């Protein structure tokens, strides 16, 4: 060892910056055309949801700041959504697409584009939130079961297997029927139905990763179980977990749509995509397919987009292995 004690003072060397790392991980994403296409589909609805009215990103706010016009500051105007989703245009009910109503109107004369735009907000908040909570619960159960094994594993996984034995749709129906339709209860239903699958995935990843030497190295340092599970193991399982989560957000959108269609979704008059399909269903044969068509297309677009993103990302990650 020829280390002089004087060299101990550290120089801050410049490693890869945070931006470089982000750029690198983005590159994996952008190198797959499929993923980029999926991203465009999803991004469309994200933009629509954010700019449906100007409440957060209100152009009027900036205008008022520049001009000092107090009235413009207070006035909220629908922006991308063009109209309020609840505004009923007398005499304009059950119309097809036109310049005034881009996608047409429903039975009450409400603008369909406005309803879809505002509806996307609900769905884009609700499904990622519920999947995230499912990820937290399922992920924790899975990593604990996988890491400790034995009786803990046996009990947890058998309980979750029991839950998985029920068809998901049945679980949703039972939970919503018991608790009543509301945003919180929809989240609860999706978490309960989704967590077992996530737990399974995380458990199998944990079983693989915990045999690696760096986990043994952490054990020989006497690290606690929590440290090993959440600092050593879980970060290395993130690839498959992220891809699974993307798919699950898609399924959650389906689930919310289904619940809305069955009348168990967010209570009316909220512009829920599923309930738009349900309401429009009876007018298809009357020559007015627009409600059902646009809302179904919107759901399909989001879900397909998320699936393509997950597929593309998965392919890229496989190639990097």
């Amino acid at each position: 060892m020829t280390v002089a004690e004087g060299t101990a003072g550290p120089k801050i060397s410049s490693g890869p910056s945070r931006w470089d790392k982000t750029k690198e991980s983005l590159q994996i994403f952008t190198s797959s055309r499929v993923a980029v296409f999926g991203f465009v589909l999803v991004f469309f609805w994200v933009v629509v949801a954010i700019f449906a009215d100007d409440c957060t990103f209100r152009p009027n706010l900036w205008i008022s700041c520049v001009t000092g016009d107090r009235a413009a500051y207070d006035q909220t105007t629908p922006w991308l959504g063009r109209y309020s989703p609840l505004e009923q245009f007398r005499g304009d009910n059950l119309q097809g697409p036109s310049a005034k109503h881009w996608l047409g109107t429903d039975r009450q004369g409400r603008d369909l584009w406005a309803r879809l735009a505002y509806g996307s907000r609900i769905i884009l908040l609700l499904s990622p939130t519920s999947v995230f909570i499912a990820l937290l619960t399922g992920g924790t159960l899975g990593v604990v079961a996988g890491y400790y094994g034995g009786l803990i594993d046996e009990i947890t996984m058998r309980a979750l297997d029991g839950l998985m034995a029920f068809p998901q749709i049945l679980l949703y129906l039972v939970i919503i029927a018991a608790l009543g339709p509301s945003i919180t209860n929809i989240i609860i239903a999706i978490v309960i139905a989704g967590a077992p699958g996530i737990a399974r995935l995380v458990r199998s990843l944990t079983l693989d990763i915990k045999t690696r030497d760096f986990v043994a190295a952490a054990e020989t340092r006497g690290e606690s179980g929590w440290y090993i599970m959440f600092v050593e193991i879980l970060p290395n399982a993130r690839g498959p977990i992220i891809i699974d989560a993307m798919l699950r957000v898609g399924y959650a959108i389906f689930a919310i749509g289904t619940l809305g269609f069955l009348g168990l979704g967010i209570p009316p008059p909220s512009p829920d995509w599923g309930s738009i399909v349900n309401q429009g269903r009876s007018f298809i044969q009357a020559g007015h397919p627009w409600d059902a068509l646009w809302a179904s297309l919107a759901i399909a677009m989001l879900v397909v987009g998320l699936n393509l993103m997950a597929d593309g990302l998965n392919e890229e990650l496989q190639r990097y292995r």
Partner: protein
Amino acid sequence: MDRAVIKIQNVGISYETRYGDVLAVKDVSFDIHRGETVGVVGESGCGKSTLAYGMVNYLGRNGKISKGDIIFQGQSLVGRSAEELRQLRGNQISMVYQDPMTSLNPVLRIGEQMSEVLTVHRDIEETEARRRCADMLAKVNMPDPVKVLERYPHQISGGQQQRVVIAMAMLNNPALLIMDEPTTALDVTVEATALDLVNQLRRDFDTAILLISHNMGVIARVSDRVGVMYAGELVEMAAVEEIFANPRHPYTQGLIRCLPKLGRSKQGSVLYPIRGRVPSPANLPPGCLYEPRCDYARDACRQERPELRYLNKDHTTRCFFSEEINPAEWTPPPDLAPIVDEAEDADEVVDTILTATHLQTYYRHPSSSLLSIIGLGKKEYVKAVDDISFDVVKGKTLGVVGESGCGKSTLIKTIIGLEAKTGGDAEFMGFDIGNKVKKRDLNLIRELQMVFQNPDSTMNPTYTVGKQIERPLRRFKIVPKDQIRGEVVRLLQAVKLDEYYYDRLPRQLSGGEKQRIGIARALAGRPDLVLCDEPVSALDVSVQAAVVNLLLEIQKNFGTTMMFIAHDLSVVRFISDYIAVMYLGQIAEIGAAEAIYQPPYHPYTEALLSAVPIPDPTAEQKRIRLEGNVPSPLNPPSGCRFHTRCPRRELLPDGGQICEMEIPPWRDAGNGHRIFCHVPLEELEKIEPVIHAPVSTEEA
């Protein structure tokens, strides 16, 4: 008379990648004659396997032969369609891969797989085919060949699987047999029998054999001629004796120098690693490819790439100065003087740091019977470590050797606390360490650290190198918080890495660098005892030499005690002061390192030593081959556990009945050298040494 079976002429092989074509093999030419074994040796990433796959056009979708010609029995193999190739080759070329299990179909019986080779290629009837298969299995020394035909691959041992694969390759009596690292996945004793088989097949069938290996010892044992590959080029080719006695390319010389000679130890000698690493095919130096790592590099080497040229009729080299560089005149760089000085302090106080007495570690074996499901079945145990007693002396190294499955890893895991002991006692500096690591005191945990085998999994891929070395510093509170970074840099320098490695991610490092960081991480807690579980067996020889040197230097500077597991007997001999030979969960022989490698031997040690491939074709080794498999540790043999395979039982009256009946006594050969055997010491001492190496001429 042209006896060449295959002629490889200026062959270049390239892979298409995202960043354009990458030339993995450049301009390689050689012939293989009938009844000749050509060995190809080199570090990983030098294009050895690509060459072999290229010869059978098995390069995968993105690989192609971009240059040159391969002429097999007078016909070119390049540029033909898969079907044409199949007809041309017929069944004249066979290939044997590294892992026998991947070459055998696990759902087919061995007889079905083997006879298929015959019935598909030729019009041979089923019964006739089976008869020939049984004959061939007998020729590869398979015990009970007819019964083996009825078994599935998982029912026979790894060595037998490899024999089946070789037998299958030989069924059609091929003109050329290509073997890609055929023994790398096998234990030394099994490897020895497999290599004997290669020699025997070449004699009996007059086959041309191309054998690829990274192990110079394997190459020395079976080859007639040796080609050395470096970065996709053939840099030297000559007869095997010539390559080892008179290497004329600096790379070949470097490869030979970085191997520990069996019987050499850290006292008075040192390993000479090759600096740097193999350049990636995408980023080659402009001149000679070896120039950046070469001790003899001159200006001419940087300007122009040397061509392969003839030194004499049978010796080619790709170096401008081959005539001038004499391996005997090579002087080691000044910073590589022998690390441990020869003058041993005779009346040194021998301080024991770790004591194990009758240590046992059993694993519960899950029984498949119905009764055990409801908890009534007989409990079965794998006796991984069974009744082991030894001491480790402070500041010294105890090496542990043995075949896979002998319990050496379990022993280390028990000491460090990853497994709980079943019985016996283990004490470390007076503290009991029989419990698992979670129940130990933090200070005790800090004193025992471990270096792991697999460089790819020893580091957490998510975090930077710095973060991972910091963790033990924080956890054991070695230095105040504001000095952590400085300490990490100091540790990096201790393992000869620069400060900029701090921000690197593990995937940006080579295997050797990862292993160094694993060592730095183990040293961070300033432990008294470092347990090394095969730390160098996954590394290339040149890197292995550097890591071994590093461990020795650390031991010298910090006075660290080490336990060192390895299956390579030369490495263990080099690094250890004391050695324990393990067989089936028990110690067969233990003592000072030099005593283990000299008679009296335990019969098992003797067999191990005679199996080690020695990188010197002129060395004479006694030929002792163990029969049969390692018995199951679930139900080890009675008496002496080695009695089922012991070649020395006949030294005892009535064929060694006693070996089956009674547990052998410990025979004390003096100086702490103990042998666990029924054969009396006087008999064991009469056995001749296993290895007669000629007096080495290049002693520096």
